[in-house]
């Protein structure tokens, strides 16, 4: 069969890297990085995913078509999240014409609690 054979050593090294990343992300969650805490956690998760997809799942050694298929799901998920969050992030940001600015401020504050 055509698939490339990768040495077990590579797999073990990838696993070690995954474990180190797990340790890092766990450690990072114990430290307060403010707004960057979630960013760090997600970035590490993406790196872990890439390691699994590229090496364990052999995408690195596969055809361009495989790359496209592997990326499509994530790309479409990003479309869904971006456009939906586009709604939730901008709700209540336009003042209705029948409300004065102070009235509207009270409204939005009570909405977002």
């Amino acid at each position, binding site marked *: 069969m055509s698939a490339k054979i990768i040495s077990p050593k590579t797999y073990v090294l990838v696993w070690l890297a995954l474990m180190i990343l797990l340790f890092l992300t766990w450690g990072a969650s114990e430290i307060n990085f403010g707004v960057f805490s979630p960013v760090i956690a997600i970035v590490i998760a993406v790196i872990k995913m890439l390691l699994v997809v590229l090496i364990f799942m052999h995408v690195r050694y596969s055809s361009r*078509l495989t790359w496209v298929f592997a990326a499509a*799901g994530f790309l479409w998920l990003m*479309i*869904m999240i971006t*456009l939906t969050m*586009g709604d939730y992030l*901008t709700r209540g940001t336009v003042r209705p014409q029948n409300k004065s600015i102070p009235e509207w401020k009270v409204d939005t504050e009570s909405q977002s609690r």
Partner: protein
Amino acid sequence: MNIIEETHPPPPAKLEPDYLEAGHTVRSWLLTTDHKRIGLLYLFSIIFFFFIAAVAAGIMRLELLTPKGDLVLSETYSKLFTLHGVIMVWFFLIPSIPTVLGNFLIPMMIGARDVAFPKLNLLSWYLFMAGGMFALYAIIAGGVDTGWTFYTPYSSRYSNSHVIEMATGIFLSGFGSILTGLNFIITVHKMRAPGMTWFRLPLFIWSHYATSLILVLATPVLAITLLLMALERIWGIGIFDPRIGGDPVLFQHLFWFYSHPAVYIMVLPSMAVISELIPCFSRKQIFGYKFIAFASLAIAFLGFLVWGHHMFVAGPSVYAGLVFSLLSFLVAIPSAIKVFNWTATLHRGSISFETPMLYALGFIGLFSLGGLTGLFLAALGADVHLTDTYFIIAHFHYIMVGGTVLGFMGGMHFWWPKITGRMYPEKMGQLAALVTFIGFNLTFFPQFILGYLGMPRRYHAYAPEYQVYNVLSTAGASILAVGYILPVIYFIWSLHKGKKAPANPWNATGLEWQTPSPPPVHNFYETPLVVKGPYDYSPEEEERKLEERHG
């Protein structure tokens, strides 16, 4: 004429039986992995579901003859339009062209013996039928009254009807759709005959490829949405439940992320059929092949960016509304590219008006009208006035019936000789196409006016001033019914009495016409070698031949 350089006359010694003669037992049909037989299994199933849903529509039209709700209770009416919507959308329109004509033709058009995963193909049909049985059970047990959109919290909390059973049916048939789409994608990538490059693929294949992308990428979102809704109904609370802070609008986001692209699942395959019919009956190379091919992919992609226009009045943010409105206008571009290219193909062609062509021309007109009224609805301001009126009903029926059903009928007539080996009666066909076109317009054009005047959808009674248009619409529906029943009768008649069809009755290009009608089990006696593009027609040649014949 032929795409194949040399046509090998089949050596009679190793003549394979055609796919219909290969087995006559019930078992040979129910356990078949032949894509052609699976296509026929789907054909019988979807026609069955079509007539169930059509009966529901008939009862609704009868109820709407008079302003008073005097034929059915309002509750029954809710169940009727839900039945009509659910069955038509998920058990007729979405499977219609891809699973019948797509299944039958995709392997033949690319010169393959079968789809990539024939067993999976059969499994898709069983999933579809299992889903259909759940849906039928839900109907017989008392029906569902939520509308085909299953909006929460009505579906998850207040409705007393058989929501779970119906959702299970849709979930299962959705799983079948996913597998069909996956099968087509891999088939197009991996099963093409030698020489069949991407730009030698018939446009039928491009459109079905785009459809399959949507099936694979959108349907799972419907699955999870219905699952979450059902979970909320069973568990008593859920993520759309306002009592614990849930937002019903989120349900709508998720639902339309699937259901708007689903519109393109319905109409792209119809465009696939039209792209084959127009060049064949104008005897001309298709105009702007690459534009049409890429427009299919563009429609599939842009279709994912516009779902918010179904929710303008549901309370999303104004900015989101603006963005969705703008994006919705963009979808008009690739759709218009297609219409213009088809029209340009007609220009200076040697046009003849056989039945499939009549349906194709009908499609172009009705789809244009449906698409243009879509622009009214994409406009944020106009939509607020028109939402939940009959304008919406008329708009999407112009796309669903005027688009998908006419495409399906055109395709069925065009490939009927290939599928059955018999010709349908041409004059009857032309008559049916004409009756369908007239009946359709009489049914749905008055609904544009009704909607503009403000008649709301989903009510069994209405203000008396709307009656004239409703009577027109009901009259049209009865003509339309004739247009649907006629083909069923003469198609069945033609199975025994129809003229025997030659391999290529339309003198069409395309690999499926290079093999006998009906085709042998493995489609071709020898794997074809493709050396030319798909639409190698020449109108001049055609004129010359005509002159020779008559002069």
